[in-house]
């Protein structure tokens, strides 16, 4: 049974369709990346998963239950870090951590103190005096110190410095080792690449890609810079080659992964003098879906 199963989810606000037939499947024990630009529907999805918002239609199951009907019972088994952490200005960080922990059924006090130390958070300070990063840390400590089956993290590292991001990644890996399922919404691609087993990419309320990182990489293009002894004629007409340009005697091109072999064989016939290829990154995948460049006529998903 999946930890989270969403199919054909629709949520509208007036005439805006925030989610438009959205699907998501998170397996138990995996760290699932949830990628998309601002306004794509990530937070709306998460809030429906938590029973804070009502769905208009579609099926949603969280840990085997209905998030709207069984909210209280489910919330005992999950912890949540909101994207925008708002705290009570007159409570201290330590009080908020204990409060949030006990609202979801208690937390591990030793882990709480350990996390406070690792995140360098002073629990005696009033939340009013906390920076955005410290408010974020408060919610993260409260979530990670709880013994739960599912962590729902909505852009948890916005506002954290790189050192704290490293601590956070370390702790999420520990949670996964302990068998916790994690849904991590983000637009920090490096973080998703570092942590996630599988990724779902959402745009305008619909899924555009979903799969393991390896699968998604397979669908992307490889950047190649090559210098050959003999000029290659009509290379731009070869299937799978895109964005060809010459820089002196070096040619820069992008090649669809499934055509890479054929293109390399062609280049080899012209006596390669130097070759540089960059692996496809999630960045590139992201840019291709959301960047300014128009989408190619045959999308990688369609080509498969």
């Amino acid at each position: 049974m999946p930890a989270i199963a969403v199919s054909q989810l629709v949520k509208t606000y007036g005439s805006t369709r925030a989610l438009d037939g959205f699907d998501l499947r998170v397996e138990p024990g995996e760290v699932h990346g949830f990628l998309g630009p601002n306004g794509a529907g990530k937070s709306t999805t998460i809030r429906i998963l938590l029973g804070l918002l009502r769905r208009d239609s579609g099926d949603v199951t969280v840990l085997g239950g209905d998030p709207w009907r069984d909210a209280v019972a489910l919330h005992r088994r999950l912890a949540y870090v909101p994207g925008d952490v708002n705290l009570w200005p007159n409570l201290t960080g330590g009080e908020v951590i204990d409060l949030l922990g006990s609202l979801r059924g208690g937390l591990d006090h030793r882990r709480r103190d350990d996390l406070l130390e690792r995140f360098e958070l002073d629990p005696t300070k009033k939340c009013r005096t906390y920076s955005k990063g410290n408010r974020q840390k408060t919610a993260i400590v409260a979530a990670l110190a709880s013994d739960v089956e599912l962590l729902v993290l909505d852009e948890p590292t916005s506002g954290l410095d790189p050192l704290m991001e490293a601590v956070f990644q370390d702790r999420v890996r520990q949670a996964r080792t302990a068998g916790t399922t994690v849904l991590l919404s983000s637009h920090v691609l490096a973080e998703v690449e570092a942590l996630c087993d599988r990724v779902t990419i959402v745009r305008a309320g619909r899924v555009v890609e979903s799969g393991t990182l390896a699968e998604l990489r397979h669908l992307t293009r490889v950047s190649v810079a090559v210098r050959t002894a003999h000029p290659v004629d009509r290379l731009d007409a070869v299937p799978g080659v895109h964005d060809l340009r010459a820089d002196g005697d070096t040619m820069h091109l992008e090649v669809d992964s499934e055509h890479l072999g054929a293109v390399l064989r062609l280049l080899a016939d012209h006596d390669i003098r130097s070759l540089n290829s960059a692996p496809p990154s999630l960045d590139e995948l992201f840019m291709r879906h959301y960047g300014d460049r128009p989408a190619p006529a045959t999308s990688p998903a369609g080509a498969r």
Partner: protein
Amino acid sequence: MNALAGTGRLARLALRRDRITLPVWIAGVTAVGFAVAASVADLYAAESDRLAYAGTTAVSVVARAFNGPVSGASLGSIVVAETFTSLAVLVALMTTFTVVRHTRQNEETGRFELTGSAMVGRHAPLAAALAVAVGADLLIGAGVAAALVGLDLPLPGALAYGAALAGVGVAFAAVAAVTAQIFSTSRAANSAAAIAVGVAFGLRAVGDALGTVDADGLRVTSAWPSWLSPLGWANQVRPFDADHSGLLALPAVFGLLAGTVAAVLVERRDAGTGLVAPRPGPARAGAGLRTATGLAWRLHRGGLLGWAIGLAVLGVAMGAVTDEVDALVGDNAGLADAITQLGGTGGLVDAFLATIMSFVALMVAGYAVQAVLRAYVEEGAGRLEAVAAGAVSRSRWLGGHLACAAGGVLVLLALTGATIGLAYAATVDGTAGVMAETARMTGAALAHAPAVFVLAGVVVAGFGLLPRWSAAIAWTALALCALAGQFGAVLDLPTAVVNASPFSHVRAVPVDEVTAGPLLALLAVAVGLLAVGMVAFRRRDLAL
């Protein structure tokens, strides 16, 4: 760079933000001044009534403490005695809120970082806030002066009244300018400034209470403590009597001095910090804070304490003047009529007490509205999100806030009733006994609880069904109840309108006996409204 650069732009920004708030304050204070002055002019049309009023208030310690020193028996003097102190306190509070809103609040929320990084001089934010606040004070002064002239009172006295009122504003604008530098939160800065208003009132009350009555028996010369208070200075201008306009220099000089202190403090501190460092708090939550209801209580208790102190002071004051009602009202048939119209026909004292009780019920209803709306404040500020993602049902979360609100209503009603009874019994010899009178007044106050709960139920229903409108619905409902209750008979409102207010269905206790029927009916309505709001809240999206 010029330290005042950008003042004009910041002032325009402040006016844009306050485009509703300030006009409401200005129009509201002017309208209240006009309405009360008009009713006073009506009640004391006869020379004999005015002489009786001035004679009694001059010798009444309580009247001197609350209304200031009376200055003769002209209609203008009586208008001053009946209106000036209340309006001056309102102006002082409005001014301090305005100054803090445009100085410390901007620093606390971080908005100042944006404006302060632009071409804005070091002293520009404070200068802009003071300009806006003092401008509003001058408009209120001009508005009230015009209203008084409109009531055919002499122009010089009206101008002196308006100028004295604006002078109070100037003095407290400067006080708030200083507190906004000292404290790092707008709440602390506002509280400190409000306490300063309270101290000024206290000094003036003591000074006037200790004052001496002149030979003619119609004027009071205040003792020295009044001269330490900006509210006292304003009284000493004595509009419509001596018109000592030269005394207006006192608030002006004080304003300049305190404003200079604030400007020096601006030079000495970093943006965003105060002079009082925030103290560290507990690193762990106590057992009381580990539930949704515990959190609600933590959020409600400070406000409830403030209301309790305020209403207890009011209760003592009201109870203490009750015995003087007979003497004060004396042979003024108009005033006696007004009181019996509101409080019913019993003894004049009981009628007065019943009137007081209906006022107290409305004030506590104000607390109830504020306390129930606290739930909406939590939701709107995004703090509900993390709590609702915990294992807490929505009904339990809302129930915690409502329990605090309902408990607070009962405590405040009982406390106010008890203090009224206690203070009244303490000033009178012939009552049945202090305990009995205290119990009687506590019961009379608590008889209004079901009506307050109905109003709270309206707020809960609004919160469930139309959260975005819940604040507007709540305060409008309270205002309509106040209108129907206090002015229903005077303004000849249709019976249907008057009956729509739950407070119209409470008997005029302690004049009439309490009957269970209407109270149970009100409770049933309250429970019905509560259920509607609860169900609607459970079924809707959270406002995130």
